[in-house]
């Protein structure tokens, strides 16, 4: 054993126990600063959404109380004061026309928007991946059937179905859940198409053949061999679906099949604020800015997860996998 090697090993991380796959994943994720920050932002946003009543109470406001005195009625209802009526009482100012507290509305809105988008995205990804994989791995007939079902799914416009469903589902059914289900249940074709295309390409590789020889069933192969490779495009796509889902919720609200007022949602706020960009810019900038931050954070996080999922990235990220090489070498020589 040369001195050089000994020196080398002295500096190496003393990782005694072998790191499991999950641990390695976390290590690779943490090694990316941007992704860590993004994860923190996402966490914060979701916490804020969960703690909306608490935060609003902290500000001493609630999202539904009107403050007619805080808007200039003769001027169409613009908030009185600069920057959309920002004050010690109203941290983010007030809503034009109604004078409702924007801080409270934004945090409550996060609940609906993030909630709906998360559920819808999870649903889309789950259905999309399942259908896509089944089409790629199943028999030719199954592929045909599933692909055609996907086509029908695409051909039916979301709005038409949403309006149809609204007529059937009783109004006692919680609306945000219904919306999430509708969006998730309808817009999954993109995911399934991407997954199918990728899975078809992967299917012909030798490591899949090897897995078949291991005696593993189709689904186990799909889960263990294909899914890890599909994760990258799926995560990227899911990060894109998320903001789309938020805006779809807004569009549905616009058509009257969305969240019922006075419950706020970011999408709804965006729709309403659209015309106010000149006279009350903060009203538009708030939901737009938050949406942007959310999307940015999610995308960066998605990117981070994508990188962290790729074991080959470890060397790029300059993290040692923490193994003692000497041990192995001695063994190899000894045998």
């Amino acid at each position: 054993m040369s001195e050089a090697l000994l020196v080398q090993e002295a500096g190496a991380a003393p990782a005694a126990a072998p790191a499991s796959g999950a641990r390695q994943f976390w290590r690779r994720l943490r090694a990316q600063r941007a992704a860590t920050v993004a994860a923190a932002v996402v966490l914060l946003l979701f916490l804020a959404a969960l703690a909306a009543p608490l935060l609003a109470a902290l500000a001493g406001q609630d999202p539904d109380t009107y403050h007619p005195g805080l808007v200039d009625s003769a001027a169409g209802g613009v908030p009185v004061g600069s920057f959309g009526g920002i004050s010690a009482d109203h941290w983010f100012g007030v809503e034009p026309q109604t004078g409702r507290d924007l801080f409270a509305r934004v945090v409550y809105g996060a609940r609906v928007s993030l909630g709906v988008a998360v559920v819808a995205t999870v649903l889309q990804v789950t259905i999309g991946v399942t259908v896509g994989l089944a089409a790629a791995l199943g028999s030719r007939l199954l592929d045909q059937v599933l692909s055609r079902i996907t086509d029908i799914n695409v051909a039916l416009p979301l709005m038409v179905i949403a309006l149809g469903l609204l007529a059937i589902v009783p109004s006692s059914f919680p609306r945000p859940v219904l919306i999430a289900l509708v969006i998730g249940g309808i817009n999954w074709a993109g995911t399934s198409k991407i997954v199918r295309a990728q899975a078809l390409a992967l299917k012909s590789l030798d490591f899949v053949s090897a897995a078949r020889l291991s005696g593993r069933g189709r689904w186990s192969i799909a889960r263990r061999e294909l899914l890890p490779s599909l994760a990258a495009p799926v995560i990227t796509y899911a990060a894109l679906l998320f903001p789309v889902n938020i805006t779809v919720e807004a569009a549905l609200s616009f058509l009257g099949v969305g969240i019922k007022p006075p419950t706020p949602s970011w999408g709804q706020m965006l729709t309403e604020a659209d015309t106010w960009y000149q006279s009350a810019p903060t009203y538009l900038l708030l939901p737009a800015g938050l949406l942007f931050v959310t999307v940015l954070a999610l995308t960066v996080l998605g990117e981070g997860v994508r990188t962290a999922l790729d074991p080959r990235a470890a060397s790029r990220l300059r993290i040692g996998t923490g193994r003692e090489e000497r041990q192995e070498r001695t063994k190899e020589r000894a045998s």
Partner: protein
Amino acid sequence: MTTPLVQVEDLTIDFGTVRAVDRLSFTLEAGAALGVVGESGSGKSASASALLGLHRGTGARVTGTVRVAGTDVGAADDAELRRLRGAKAAMVFQDPLSSLDPYYTVGDQIAEVYRVHNSVSRRAARARAVEVLDRVGIPDAARRARSRPHEFSGGMRQRALIAMALACEPRLIVADEPTTALDVTVQAQILDLLHDLRRETGMGLLLVTHDVGVAAESVDDVLVMQHGRAVERGPVAEVLGAPRQPYTRELLASVPRVDEKRAGVPGPRTATEAGPLIEAVGLRREFGRGAGRVTAVDGVSLTVHAGETLGIVGESGSGKTTLGRMLVRLIDPTAGRLRYGGTDIGSLPERELRPFRRELQMVFQDPVASLNPRRSIGESVADPLRAAGETDEARIRDRVRELLERVGLDAGRYERHPHEFSGGQRQRIGIARVLAAEPKLIVCDEPVSALDVTTQAQVISLLAELQRELGIGLVFIAHDLAVVRQVSDRVAVMRQGRIVEQGVADDVYGSPRDPYTRQLLAAVPALDPVRAAARRAARRELAAA
């Protein structure tokens, strides 16, 4: 020549905490050939890559100086490096199967590289591609140039890569195990070609190989590597003839010889009480449709009994891999019957094949492609155990560790991923996975071609041991005739999809009947450089005649 073509000083390469190459220095003159031999994982490929600056942009840390054809590789900017790569120095990679772009035809890929360094028309570049493909012995090169990589056999892909390296007439070729997938005749042809080019154009050759025979046949100097360091260097005759270092001696001792009979094992079982393990009758497989149809395997019949080894040798592209894959039912035969243990499995649908899956295993020709890059190797090896219904995590781990150690790998690398292993190490992972399935029949497609001789000997004795213990039937596909002779009870020789000769190993080797078999045996590289030179001359005369 004032300055050498390649000048390496104090080259050190670290992957994270792993030191793959440790203060390596050597030079190579124009027109000379240097062979790098050594055990698997000793840093041969890592050093070779460093010559072209291929570690740039990866996580590897490279120190020391490398000068190639007047370019300081470490200091050169990207443009300079690009001018070096391909045009002045070309690389033939170790893993031929995954080194080509699946979307483009082989001809186009070679043409693309050619056009990067030569301003010629697309058409001229294609013509050049066909020309070099022809030179490396791809039959019907003009047509095959239009095939995509997945339509090529392993050896054909390797030759395509060599053709690519030749296309720009570089001053240096760095060939990393360029003949692992080639049968001996083609191997000889390639080695002769490289030799000739060296003569004619003054090209330098850095040949990384674990096959001492190949080195003996084609290089002037040898560098023996171990643990990232050079242990011995000198003229080939000297090092091979009178090795000074114990490691070199050990290495040479492990080299199998083609004229050596199978030792320690009683002769082939002739009478079998239980009937054959697997029986193929008139197996046939076609690829493609219409004009592009290729008959890869054509009417092959064979049997393998429990505890018996059938060696398959033959020309590159003769259908060995295709046949092997059919035997384990990874591809469906176009025609013919396949019986396994009394069941006709030739046309069983996937679902009904399940019970047999784990009993029929295959070691794949390309270790890179057969391992999922995103899963740790431990998990890959554990697969068959899980599929068998084992749920106790501790037991699975223990068994996997045991298997890894059995194939000579450090059990502690359970959580590592395939890209962190050398070519030979990956090959052994594949074998460990096969063993985990506790199979009845193993089809080994070039299982030792990527292994250095010591590891090779180890793996072979491992297989023999298992066979003895468990009565496994083995189909051993290889181009190394010596290895095949060492392991096989019976041997089948394939050519153009057919079995041209089949019989007890010693009979086939001792008194070959088919002219092709004779040709093969004549092409086996000799360990003695002097004899090798003589044989090359003989081959050239034969070709000239």
